């Protein structure tokens, strides 16, 4: 049985809030130029199935920028918080999403 964890997160201004329960995956950090250009430094990501993410507020405030021919980056249009990396046009990865770890409320192991 996969160990799962509950999570909650929000952007800096609080307009966008989300939660869910998903497999307890270790965090990965991406050092590519795109991620560093987007968030000043490497992107700390928690990856989970897209279906396990639920918005509780401000889903309409999330703006997506298509940063490549297979992925888009979601951010809060009000405060600019970098929230999601989603390979929505990738055949294998489209059903997963990466959440910016800094947006999560609880401390992760």
């Amino acid at each position, binding site marked *: 049985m996969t160990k799962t964890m509950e999570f909650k997160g929000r952007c800096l201004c609080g307009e966008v809030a989300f939660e869910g329960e998903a497999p307890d995956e270790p965090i990965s950090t991406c050092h590519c130029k795109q991620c560093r250009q987007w*968030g000043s*430094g490497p992107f700390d990501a928690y990856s989970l199935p897209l279906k396990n993410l639920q918005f509780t507020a401000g889903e309409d405030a999330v703006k997506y920028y298509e940063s490549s021919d297979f992925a888009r980056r979601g951010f*809060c249009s009000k405060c600019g*918080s970098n929230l999601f990396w989603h390979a929505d046009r990738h055949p294998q990865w489209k059903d997963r999403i990466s959440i*910016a770890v800094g947006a999560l409320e609880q401390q992760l192991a």
Partner: protein
Amino acid sequence: MYGEVGMSDLKIYKGKCLCGEVSFKAEAPKKEVGLCHCTMCRRWNSGPFHALAVPFDALKVESGEENISYYRSSDYARRAFCSNCGSSLFYHGDKIPEIAHEVYFSAGLLEEPTGLKMAGHIFCASKGDYYEIEGDLPQHETV
């Protein structure tokens, strides 16, 4: 009074956001990159904010000024980002007299190679619990 006499150590910085709409140029004293581990910076950027101080007057917006959005994140500071792609651009403590003259410019925007090094870490007391701060650079609990 000064350690060395001679030419000031000015550097040309050029940088742009992920989508390329917003681009900057600055001619400013060479600085090092500092990391802020506070919860606000990590919520804004996914992880620590990597920044270097650039005098506000030296920062020239070469394109895309209409894409720069500001979020006032506290009583004393605002955060600039690109409204098209969400790239973090800079932090400006515009209501703090000691630092209002400069912005903390996102190091990730810079053209590479940058020729820069890291200086140290601030707000280490607030860092995420899923990582450690490694190395010998100065670590400050707050500022």
